[in-house]
């Protein structure tokens, strides 16, 4: 199998900072960079506002071997900003001279403690992949994303060790031209903390944030 040399990473979150999706994408791409893989990173919301950046992105996308998409699930599917970028990519790819054999990996995360909430988002990504000429090499579902809350996984210490190991396993497989191992997908699909603990923490968190804003 040909070793990986060029990756394009796209964050589907509309957040300018503290994006859990960006953290999850970085958890994979830092391993690529450590192995000398060239990684070009983009954010969907910036591409929609900066046409020159969109042109560079599409050009890099045509020349990469692996396209990594990391996105939140919004109202059961992809956020607007990523949907719009996907539409632009599909339109561009009709006439572009993209490389053959390009692969795509999609990571979807949600704020609920069940990974199934991401399923439709990943189904849409798979249809996009076929329409845009990418070979699917894995879909990762992350639940209880509020535990990560935009912070690097290392900052959570032992709590995220399994996730970090799973991303490392996934990255090495992708570098070797293989699909994301099912064992990594399985580990990443489990929430970091028990469901009941997450729900209580979530509710307390919303109340605290509202009080900070002078509400309630």
């Amino acid at each position, binding site marked *: 199998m040909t070793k990986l040399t060029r990756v394009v990473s796209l964050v589907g979150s*509309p957040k300018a900072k503290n994006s859990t999706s960006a953290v999850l994408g970085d958890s994979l791409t830092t391993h690529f960079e450590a192995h000398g893989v060239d990684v070009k990173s983009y954010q969907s919301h910036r591409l929609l506002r900066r046409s020159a950046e969109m042109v560079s992105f599409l050009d890099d996308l045509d020349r990469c071997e692996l396209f990594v998409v990391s996105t939140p699930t*919004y109202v059961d*599917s992809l956020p607007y900003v990523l949907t719009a970028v996907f539409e632009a990519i599909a339109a561009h790819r009709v006439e572009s001279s993209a490389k053959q054999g390009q692969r795509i990996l999609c990571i979807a995360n949600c704020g*609920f403690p069940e990974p199934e909430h991401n399923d*439709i988002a990943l189904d849409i990504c798979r*249809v*996009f992949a076929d*329409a845009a000429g990418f070979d699917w090499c894995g879909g990762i579902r992350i639940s209880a994303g509020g535990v990560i809350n935009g912070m690097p996984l290392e900052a959570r210490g032992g709590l995220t060790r399994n996730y970090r190991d799973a991303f490392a396993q996934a990255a090495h497989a992708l570098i070797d031209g293989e699909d994301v191992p099912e064992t990594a997908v399985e580990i990443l699909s489990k929430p970091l903390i028990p469901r009941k603990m997450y729900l209580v923490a979530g509710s307390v968190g919303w109340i605290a*944030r509202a009080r900070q804003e002078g509400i309630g």
Partner: protein
Amino acid sequence: MRAVLLNGSRTDNSVVDEMAISVGETLVKQGLNVTSYTLRDHKIGYCIGCFGCWTKSPGECVIKDDNREIAEDIIQGDLLVFVTPIVFGGYSAELKRMVDHLIPLISPFFRKLHTETHHRMRYSHYPNLLAVGSLPAPDPRQESIFHELVRRNAISLGDAESRSLVWYESDTLATIDELMHDELEVLR
């Protein structure tokens, strides 16, 4: 009975505009008062995921543009109608931009529905949901995703009754009336 119709057609998709007109006409024939929004003609910024609609101005997006008026109209209606080209099995970006702005209409707190966690509702009433999507030709995979998306959206937006239809652009617009007839009996 009042319907709010969201037309998610893109600028290059006049077929979907015609579909939206046909859907609106069918709703009127069935006795509904219809307010239609061709979303691309409205100033709607995209949701930035700040959750200000839950913590800063509960029930209302912090972005002051047409999303607020449309969301208010939706929650006061009886039927919410999505009209959209089916894009990779989901909604068009135009429609999704407004669908993302429906988050203010629900609560940040959680509830359990069967084996899944969902958000609680903010209000005592939510409209039923009808989604009409178009495809150039039959595509079972995209249609399956579209139907499941609408079903789950209806759960997210108040456990509403929902129906979803797919119209093929190779058919005549007259078939839309037929497709909608039985579904509207359930949703009214």
